[in-house]
């Protein structure tokens, strides 16, 4: 992939983030109710409310408010929480690790299970393996992740005490320990995506198998692993990678529910509490942070796409 192309994609990503910043800023303006009133509390006097309003700069023109807010986020200053006086950035960075790690592990689970199952099914079309994969994939897509999470907990944590039912420990407390806490939530989160990927991979492999270049490769004497690895997988991977990018955003949304089931205090609970408390700076911070992650994942997917597909590389 050419440098120009990387720069174009990067520019596109930054543009998206800027638009998100505008929407996030407007969020506070559009929501009914007054932030200053929320902060001041129910029994505040009008004078107190207007003092807070001036303190927050809410009396200034909207463009001026936005530009000072935007300059702030460029410097990493997302404001302070309305209730704890801690900075939003610090709070998010503190809450992010379990969420980000569970999401990434869910992607790993999805790719390992989904792509493997899809390849095997695609190569053995019509066999019992293929039919079971299709059936399981449909089941996986239909199953809500919170229900799946509860089933996993009851089987692997309660009925058999193999894995912890709730909580999270940092990886610095030991890899094995960390892994035991991560497996169930990331599986619960990732299986639906695995099912989606399995279906797509199966379809792509089946499609590539009918392509003339596979016949050409056979006519050259290629077969078995050689044929699959060099001629089928790389071509089948191109559409699958796109689907994976689309799924990344869904996973980041889904993780909130999974965190709740497993009692993990990550970004999910932070986001829910902030919304319930109308902690606007925190909501804005959360939305911006999520947007950065989704844009980053899609950027990585775009780059991977270019690496896999030589036609994009030279475009």
């Amino acid at each position, binding site marked *: 992939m050419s440098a120009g192309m990387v720069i174009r994609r990067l520019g596109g990503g930054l543009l998206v983030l800027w638009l998100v910043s505008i929407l996030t800023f407007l969020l506070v303006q559009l929501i009914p109710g007054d932030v200053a009133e929320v902060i001041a509390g129910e029994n505040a006097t009008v004078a107190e409310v207007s003092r807070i309003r001036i303190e927050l700069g809410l009396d200034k023109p909207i463009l001026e408010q936005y530009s000072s807010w935007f300059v702030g986020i460029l410097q990493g200053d997302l404001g302070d929480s309305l209730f704890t006086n801690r900075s939003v950035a610090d709070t998010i960075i503190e809450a992010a690790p379990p969420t980000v790690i569970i999401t990434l592990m869910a992607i790993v689970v999805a790719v390992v299970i989904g792509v493997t199952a899809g390849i095997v099914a695609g190569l053995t079309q019509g066999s019992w393996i293929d039919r079971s994969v299709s059936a399981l994939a449909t089941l996986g897509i239909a199953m809500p992740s919170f229900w799946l999470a509860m089933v996993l907990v009851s089987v692997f944590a309660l009925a058999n005490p193999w894995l912890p039912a709730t909580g999270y420990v940092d990886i610095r407390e030991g890899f094995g320990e960390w892994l035991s806490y991560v497996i169930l939530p990331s599986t619960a989160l990732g299986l639906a995506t695995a099912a989606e990927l399995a279906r797509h991979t199966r379809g792509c492999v089946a499609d590539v198998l009918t*392509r*003339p*270049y596979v*016949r*050409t*490769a*056979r*006519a*050259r*004497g*290629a*077969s078995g692993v*050689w044929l699959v690895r*060099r*001629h089928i997988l*790389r*071509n089948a991977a*191109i559409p699958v990678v796109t689907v994976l990018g689309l799924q990344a955003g869904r996973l980041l949304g889904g993780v909130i529910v999974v965190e709740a089931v497993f009692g993990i205090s990550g970004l999910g609970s932070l986001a829910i509490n902030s919304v319930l408390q109308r902690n606007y700076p925190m909501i804005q911070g959360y939305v911006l942070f999520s947007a950065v992650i989704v844009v980053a994942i899609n950027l990585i997917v775009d780059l991977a796409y270019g690496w*896999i*597909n*030589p*036609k994009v590389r*030279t475009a």
Partner: protein
Amino acid sequence: MTAGPGQRSDAGAAEPLLAVKGLTIDLPGGARQRGLVEDVTFEVRKGQAVALIGESGCGKSLTSMAILGLLPAAVRVAAGSIHFDGVDLLTCNRKQLRKVRGGPVGMVFQEPMSSLNPTMTVGDQIAEVRRLHLGERRSVALKEASKLLSRVGIPNADRRLGSYPHEMSGGMQQRVMIAAAIACDPKLLIADEPTTALDVTIQAEILELLRDLRRDLDLAVLLVTHDLGVVADFCDDVVVMYAGHIAERTPVDRLFYEPQHPYSSALLAAVPQAGRARTSLTVIPGRVPSAGHFPGGCRFEPRCAHSVEDVCRRPQADTAIADDRRTRCGRVASGDLILKGTVRG
């Protein structure tokens, strides 16, 4: 009219390089779809160029695919044998077949763009053949690939090794296909409509290349085509197929002087003649019946200008009328019908 290089000098005595006998290809499931290809018998001798010719859907591509076991999954060979160098490719095991594919038999397909892997450099696609068959390391095989690219007339071969198919023109792509097909010094090249998807000028270049390769490598060629001009230019023998049957098998020059099947003569008549102004285009009335709707007797009978009901409604046998000529027309075989060619002898 010339019969091309590699005359039928070693005809007769030696065992043919490729011998297809009684080949029948079915689409299983229901009697209606039987006999996509039926009772096809022909030979290719060492160094010889044989054309398989006919309209679209006559089974010529299926026949060529069947040789290396590359038929689509839905169809299967129901009867017959395909001997290459004495080994029946239809009964040998997978490993033996893999050794033949890309080794002593190379194959070139119709649309080079879709027949080359879009995610692999052309160098790797050519080198692949040598790695598979000769066990060469990638670096060694790539050096050979570079020589092969030069051999098929691609300039700057070393630089071109790293190109992807979409960075090349159609003619270049077909040269790459040919380079890969001849990478292991095959004895037989099967070319399935190698020029059909190309511009006319490029077609001539590719044919020229194939002609050179035949001469230099003593390569036998089975050329699947629907272009009579290509046949006249390039081939020694011609096998005319119609609706899954062989209509006629003959040395190519005789086809133009005295076709031995009404379908051949109709095909010849349908070739537009250059230099004659305002002649109307001759066409064969009707169209090729689709598989499963073949007539019970002679399959060409409904469209034939020489049809005689009580003879032609009966199944016709593939009959030898000379050492090197066969026809499936009962009237021609019995001497009842004499056809005229388009070439004034």
